[in-house]
């Protein structure tokens, strides 16, 4: 009965919208699902009306044939050709059948465990940016934006625009930023954007400190102060440089972690990048994953940012149309060529960021024995250490001994920390082709009453 042309796209950010739009234009029947109630992903949060390329505004105008299901959370991949979703508004769980699938599930801020990171007022940089852009609020009035990479400029821009006093604490040395001047100068869009950030930050007296790190956050029921230290090239604190700064909020931005849970549930091959301490979905030049009829685009393939996501999404949509027989090879070649050229162009800046701002091993040594590792279950590093006794140092050993990673977030926050902490402190070798932790369905917490079995037998 199926003609092979039903495409399901998971994720309504830049990559997912681009994939849906390209595939729909090429003749596939496309359904796009996203957890949020608005399209745009994290990048366009609070800016849905932006006229930037790839925005929800542009998508709404161009992709009129796409069925869009918002507030819809994928909770399982029960078999090939079907996903189980939970619609939050109707509180109903159902299956969506498809012939092909594009994964564009994005990324979230890399969590890091430093003393005091569980205090109210400590938020991720991306979370702070969303709060400022979409709602005009901030976690405090005097803020540190701490971490590494050009994203800190964007977050400090968003927060200082709301009247917050902001200081940027960049762990990488100034020369890491300076090393990008060449690629930035050759990229008009990024050059203009960067100049804008720097001009506004200067006007608002936002100071930037390089080669420094927030190594502890203090307070009782909320953030009251932070310790800032100079760090060496491995991000290890230089003794005698610590000073205490009085702040009421800290925004942590040490890069991102791809949302791989659905790709893992489907069984797509992953690969570890030791340099960035991350796992990515392995794709071919046409954005095909190792699983047939499943494609991937955007942050989950390599954290390239919005412009890379747009090109990859378009590529994934076109390849899905080719594989479904909706596009012939000659037509595909004509349409994919400019996409590949654009990808090559925008990937220069992305590649610089990937190499220049990688997390260094000192980051995983900030935690003291008392520092919380798993926030859901309140497991400290000391408890994790004790759980290792007599066992080889693996995330699994800590999980079974302590329940770390078995709370509501299912290890999304602590597992990336635990993996790198074990590597740096205990010589653990993370596997190269699969993440050393898994998430069981439901991939997100779903109220019991939403499942059909419970509706049928109230």
């Amino acid at each position, binding site marked *: 009965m199926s003609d092979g042309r039903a495409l399901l796209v998971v994720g309504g950010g830049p990559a997912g919208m681009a994939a849906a739009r390209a595939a729909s234009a090429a003749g596939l029947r496309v359904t796009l699902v996203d957890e949020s109630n608005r399209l745009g992903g994290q990048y366009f949060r609070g800016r849905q009306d932006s006229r930037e390329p790839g925005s929800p505004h542009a998508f709404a105008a161009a992709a009129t044939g796409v069925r869009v299901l918002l507030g819809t959370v994928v909770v399982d991949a029960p078999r090939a050709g079907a996903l189980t979703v939970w619609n939050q508004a109707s509180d109903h769980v159902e299956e969506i059948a498809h012939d092909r699938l594009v994964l564009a599930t994005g990324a979230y801020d890399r969590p890091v465990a430093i003393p005091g990171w569980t205090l*109210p007022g400590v938020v991720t940089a991306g979370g702070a940016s969303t709060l400022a852009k979409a709602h005009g609020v901030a976690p405090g009035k005097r803020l540190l934006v701490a971490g590494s990479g050009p994203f800190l400029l964007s977050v400090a821009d968003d927060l200082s625009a709301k009247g917050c006093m902001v200081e940027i604490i960049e762990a990488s040395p100034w020369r890491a930023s300076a090393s990008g001047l060449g690629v930035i100068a050759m990229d008009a869009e990024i050059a203009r954007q960067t100049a804008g950030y720097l001009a506004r930050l200067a006007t608002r007296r936002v100071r930037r400190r390089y080669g420094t790190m927030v190594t502890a956050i203090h307070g009782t029921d909320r953030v009251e102060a932070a310790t800032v230290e100079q760090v060496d090239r491995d991000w290890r604190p230089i003794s005698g440089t610590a000073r205490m700064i009085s702040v009421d909020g800290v925004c942590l931005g040490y890069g991102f972690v791809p949302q791989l849970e659905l790709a893992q549930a489907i069984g797509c091959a992953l690969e570890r990048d030791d340099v960035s301490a991350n796992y990515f979905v392995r794709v071919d030049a046409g954005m095909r994953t190792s699983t047939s009829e499943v494609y991937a685009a955007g942050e989950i393939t390599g954290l390239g940012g919005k412009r890379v996501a747009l090109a990859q999404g378009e590529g994934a949509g076109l390849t899905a149309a080719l594989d479904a027989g909706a596009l012939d090879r000659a037509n595909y070649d004509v349409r994919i060529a400019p996409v590949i050229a654009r990808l090559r162009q925008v990937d220069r800046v992305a590649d610089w960021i990937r190499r220049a701002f990688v997390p260094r091993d000192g980051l995983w040594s900030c935690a003291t024995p008392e520092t919380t590792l798993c*926030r859901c279950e309140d497991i400290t590093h000391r408890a994790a250490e004790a759980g290792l006794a007599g066992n080889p140092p693996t995330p699994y050993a800590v999980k079974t001994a302590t329940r770390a990673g078995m709370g*509501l977030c299912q290890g999304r926050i602590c597992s990336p920390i635990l993996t790198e902490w074990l590597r740096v402190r205990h010589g653990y070798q993370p596997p190269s082709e699969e993440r050393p932790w898994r998430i069981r369905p439901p991939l997100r917490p779903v109220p019991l009453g939403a499942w059909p079995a419970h509706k049928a037998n109230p």
Partner: protein
Amino acid sequence: MTTAPQVEDGALTLDGKRVAVRPGDTIAAALLRQGIVALRHSRTGEARGVFCGIGICNECLVTVNGRPNVRACVTPAEAGAVVATGRASP
């Protein structure tokens, strides 16, 4: 005349206290505008609040109209909603 507690338009109550909401607000945004950052206590009694801000970490769980474990950072703030803090995660 009803004796039920009256909630003005454009406000939710947090533990009985009135908190103004703006169109498009999430619960977390409405509370942060008033400087409220602590939303619950963890298993061992530590104060916790919004961390990831995008619905992943489940640190900002509150009870809304009697329904527990609602993520404040991604849940729209509706006028008249009765929000309670202080619950530990299940």
